[in-house]
């Protein structure tokens, strides 16, 4: 069975869109083809955590700007 969200390109795309250093991105992308399904699901979970941190960071900045304008 093909897991579309676990495809190489899907994971690479996810990595590229995260707000992390380019060096880190390249290191992650380089690993993706070697990963099996279990590793991919774990990577996806970890990327999800990074994604969540990004979103939290954005929310904090927005809150700061909002406070600054008051």
């Amino acid at each position: 069975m093909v897991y579309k969200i676990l495809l190489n390109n899907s994971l690479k795309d996810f990595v590229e869109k995260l707000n992390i250093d380019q060096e880190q991105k390249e290191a992650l992308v380089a690993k993706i083809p070697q990963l099996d399904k279990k590793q991919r699901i774990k990577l996806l979970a970890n990327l999800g955590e990074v994604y969540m941190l990004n979103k939290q960071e954005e929310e904090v900045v927005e809150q700061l700007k909002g406070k600054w304008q008051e």
Partner: protein
Amino acid sequence: MAETLRPREDVVQEHSSLPGPGSGENNAPKVAPEDPAKVQAQIKGLKASLAEGTDTFVTGLKGADVGEILNKDTIAAENKVKAEAGLDETVNKIIANQEKQRAIQESTRKIADNIAKAEAEKVRRQAEAVQQEQQRLAQQAEADRLAEEARAMKENVDRAKERAEVGKAVAKSEAEKQPTPVGVVQEESDIAKAMKEADKRNRQTVTNPEVAPQNNSNPLRDEMIRAVEKANKPKAEKQPVAIANKAETPNQEVQPDQEKSFVRRAGEFARPVVGGVKSRAEGLAEAYKIGKGWAKGFREWRTERAERRAQEAKEAEQVAQNGAKAEQAVVEGKTNAAESIDLHDIQKQLEALRSEMKKIIGEGSKEDIIEETSEANAEMSELLEERQSLAEKVTGKNIAEIMVTAEKRVAETLGDGMYNTREEYVRAHLSREQNVLTIAKETDLLNTEWKNLSESQQKKYGNNFELFRTKTYQKAQKNGFSEDEFYGLMAAGYKPQSLKRKGFLNIGRSISNVLTLRLGRFGRSERRIVGPDGKKVWMRTKDFNKMAELEGKKFKNGIANEAQNRLGEQWGAAVKNETEDSLERIANDKNAAIERAKSPFEQGKKAMLVEILSGLSEQLANPSKLKSREKSFGGKMDSEINAWSMFEGIGGFGDLNGDPRKNARILKDGVSELGVGAKDTKNMAEKGRNNFVSEIVTLLLKLAKNF
């Protein structure tokens, strides 16, 4: 008897000397009776003596026939003597005869006196007539000259009117184009050249000692001039220059020395005529000779003058004709358009020269600086706007509020807390700024001229520029220029050429050429000026005065405007800087806060990624399995069903292209592949993005653990 009766020669001799009534001759001794023949001889001798004497002193005179008069009486006496001679009468008779003879002598003397007086009167009248003729000729000459000048004046007025019309047209044309001095420059016309030549000729004539008399003090001439001026008073008011010239120019037509000398000599010969026969005769002869010689000289001089005048008139007429033709050509000028084009070209050349001159004297570089400054200001404004825009985005503050705050701060710093607005600041400092600018500009203008002076000329000022400045301005004041007019004309390009003229340093002299303006003598209606293009043109005094006034106002107003602008710019620049600083401070503060807020997240992500990578490194794939993994996960990614869209599109089902159904399908397909039930995802979606993502992550980790 012989001793008392003097010989006839003695008597004649005595009579020939024409003794006066009180002389010793009246006391002649009584004569004793003599022989009639002797008496007769005496009478003959007397007659001859009288004839000879009178003939002597009337030599050269015309009119009275002395011999005839003498004969009339002497013949009668002779006849009487003859009648008595034959009688051989007594001595008493002889004595009586002698007394009669004496009476005859007396009568003859009186006659001679009368004749002499008549002749003297005649000569006097002749002298008077000559004098009157001389005066009449002088008056005629003066009248001719005045009439000639009047004609010249009228021609000048006509030409000036024509030039004024042309000047007005030019001024109007130029005024519509740009604010340049009215009628500043025109080509020097043939008429102007003719006037210049005439002026030069006149000067040469005046300064030529052979032509002009040294002494121009002539009451008669002055009286005539006054009379003419009085008669032509309206014209004189219109043409003060010409009248002034007449008054100042020595009269070349009248020969006052000759006239004076003639009168004096005429008086000299008239006086001795009354005194004695000899001196009177000589005096008369001399006077006649002098008068005749003078008359000849006068006629020659008059002829020469007439020829000279005729020649000058001919030349003037020729010049006038040429001038008239030239003027006519200009007036007709193949329509006004052609004329406008020519003048416009001249104006363009002028502008080019001015521009070049400004570059030479440094104004061009200032303009460049100003231009560069303007460009820099524009760039700064652009940059400031960008920053303001950015700052507004960042801070959300109204930029106008920031600027108000900035202006308050400027009022505290630049305005020393005394001036709250730009207007107040400008108004308070305008006078000071104007003075600063005025001194700077005037110094620049004069400094240019100072540099143009030769070393020797600078040395005359002790190599002291300030002395040069002071004396130059004093000259301008003497010539009636105000400070603004003087520097205004210089700023417009009328350079003080005359600073190079000899005698400029002599304060006591009237320096009429401080600028390149040949101001001419006082009262002239026209003056020659040298324009910025170096061309010399004639300009009416009132036009020149208007131009000077205009340039003065332009100079003054220009400085006032510049001072106002500079002060305004100072205030504006301060406010701009303050605003920019405020914005920068605000932005910096906020950026710093944001960076501080982001810092823990960045660190957390970094730690997490390090952990991920280290975990992946420990689980390197077997190369033999890479091929199968490539086969399993190397397929083409679905643009809609991928890992990113799974997380990004979950929040409320509205973030992915705004289509809830589509989002739901993506989510279901993606998550269901991983064994997450659709029912659960629907419930989780209602919990919010972070919570949902968190739960997905938990599920994924759990899922991975189960493998």
